[in-house]
């Protein structure tokens, strides 16, 4: 099995699960090769130097390439640039061109049986309402370059599905480990949490009752591991998300955040930081424009950080995951309610100073 992005948030969890099987030999493509091998990576896993941005060779040595072309049965493509506000060309370089390179590599794998491509439910872009596993996103445009590049990636993958056994796994936003609260991959949500903690987030666009879809990394890994190993279906697209029943409203999440700050840092309460106001997008944009015109660098960075994910909140939607749930539920793999573990995530962020003291 060849895994790209095997050192990332989801990748490392998946690698740990696959490496536990006797009949699977896992090779992880890393930009740093064996030198960049994470300490936590299982000993049986081999790390090879390579990069999806280096074309169909994946930057592998000729020998490694030839060996892999002969032996690989499974490709798990997790590598992605998940920064929301990267210039579009840069996002495409990894997410679109990088995927094209992986697929080109896959075509030369003589024993290939399965290719798993990881995407995001936010390929839905600015679409509102219900977004299903059958839907193709982007009809109403996108909120950021990440979404757009992933939608373009899916288009490439769907064409390749005609000749390769590929399934697409669209993930919701991963916020950490539901059991421990540990966050291994900080994203815009965590940055926004920190700004809120610092009292630099006066408002977020959205609606009080709008749902925010978040998932823990352990569920994402368990679900995709099961779907890939036990129920692989070429041509299928799955949503791994919280959906309507396990998501929380934006209002409830803000309340839970404030409550967690007060619970785990009682002194924080003395700072009298108000719960951010939930506002229409138009009002939020006026605030952002004012901060820009004022040239206030601190608030400018803060608003941009919130902007990166919060604009999606202005386009309320729910993700339908019937296909994934239909397969996962009988196996007992279910996404937890976000409010059942969210507190642990916030606690971990506070107690490690957002990972600095982890």
């Amino acid at each position, binding site marked *: 099995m060849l895994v790209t992005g095997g050192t990332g948030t989801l990748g490392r969890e998946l690698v740990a699960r696959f490496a536990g099987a006797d009949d699977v030999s896992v090779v992880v493509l890393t930009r740093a090769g064996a030198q960049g091998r994470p300490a936590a990576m299982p000993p049986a896993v081999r790390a090879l130097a390579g990069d999806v941005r280096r074309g169909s060779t994946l930057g592998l040595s000729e020998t490694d390439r030839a060996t892999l072309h002969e032996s690989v049965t499974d490709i798990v493509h997790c590598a992605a640039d998940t920064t929301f506000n990267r210039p579009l060309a840069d996002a495409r370089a990894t997410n679109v061109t990088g995927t094209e390179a992986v697929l080109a590599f896959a075509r030369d794998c003589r024993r290939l049986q399965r290719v798993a491509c990881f995407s995001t439910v936010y390929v839905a872009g600015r679409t509102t309402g219900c977004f299903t596993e059958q839907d193709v996103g982007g009809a109403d445009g996108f909120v950021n370059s990440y979404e757009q590049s992933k939608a373009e990636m899916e288009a490439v993958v769907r064409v390749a599905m005609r000749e390769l056994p590929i399934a697409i796994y669209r993930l919701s936003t991963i916020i950490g480990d539901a059991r421990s609260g540990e966050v291994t991959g900080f994203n815009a949500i965590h940055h926004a949490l920190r700004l809120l903690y610092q009292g*630099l987030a006066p408002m977020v666009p959205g609606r009080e009752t709008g749902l925010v879809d978040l998932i823990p990394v352990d569920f994402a890994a368990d679900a995709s591991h099961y779907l890939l190993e036990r129920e692989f279906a070429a041509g299928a697209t799955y949503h791994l998300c919280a959906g309507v029943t396990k998501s929380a409203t934006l209002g409830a999440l803000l309340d839970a955040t404030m409550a967690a700050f007060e619970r785990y840092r009682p002194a924080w309460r003395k700072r*009298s930081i*108000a719960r951010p106001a939930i506002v229409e997008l138009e009002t939020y944009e006026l605030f952002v424009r004012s901060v820009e*015109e004022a040239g*206030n660098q601190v608030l400018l960075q803060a608003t941009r950080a919130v902007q990166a994910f919060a604009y999606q909140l202005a386009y309320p939607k729910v993700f339908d995951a019937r296909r994934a749930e239909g397969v996962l539920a009988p196996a007992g793999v279910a996404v937890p309610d976000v409010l059942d573990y969210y507190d642990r995530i916030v606690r971990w962020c506070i107690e490690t100073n957002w990972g600095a003291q982890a």
Partner: protein
Amino acid sequence: MTRVGIDALTYYLPASAPTLAELERRGMLRGPASTLAGFGFERARVAESESHVDMAMHAVRTLLDETNTAADEIDLVLYAGALTSSSTMECAPAPTGSVLLMRDLMDFFKYPASQLQSELDLVNASVAGIDQQGCATIFSSVRLARATLLAEPDVRTVLCVSADRLPHGSPREVVYNLVSDGACAMLVRRDAARNRIVATHQVTKGAFWDSGSLENEIIAAYFPTARTVIEETLRKAGVTLNDIRWVIPHNVSLRSWEILLGLIGCPREKLFSANIGRVGHTIAADNFINLRDATDAGLLHAGDLLLLFTFGYGLNWSCMVLEH
């Protein structure tokens, strides 16, 4: 029901009114004039020769004259000072840089309210100073005037007065707002003919007392708490925003008002914004200058519900609903 209201009010503004360009030339802005212009400001009012006590005296004299109120009708003076210097006397013709020139220990025992009472012959009035709430200070005076009138039958007329002036030559820009000097004075009475005080509400967040070092946090704190305070005031008044005919603002930037109106879901047309550009932010007197001008402009009708909101360092958010 006892109706306590603002029966009459007036204000004083210095004649000097330099434009943004002039202030920029004089080095009295922190950033470019164009930024403040974009936020709705045009000119500031600057007291070149008047002290804050002079301005207070002028406003009260005008008020008593306009309303034919005899000096001995005033039972209580609530003198509001937003700046810490406003609660002290100007001890000498102010040199550049400061109105707080204390030369003698006894200078610390000289009070503007007493001087005002004496100069204007308010012989029946007791006096009290209200301060330490920044631009929200005068709101507290009105609130306490109402409470006193409801609690003490022998108090019939309360004079609320507020006057603030920045030190000579000091910058006129504070957190993207253009600051003016000015004063206001009002008579608060039982059974007032207009401006019945329907509800007041104030929130103080002392955690932000060190204003200079927390500018960004203060900007961030302003909006969500402003919304909460406005909503709570409306709740106390038993009305909704739909019932409010006019929002009478403090003259912080028009832009910040547009954002706040968006937050509370209030149409821009309800904001009396004419004075933001031409008067600037007179520290504490804004809402009452605007109330007077809106009245004089014939915009207000009997029974109109008015929402007055202000914000002061300290930090303090204050709001009241009046029935005109």
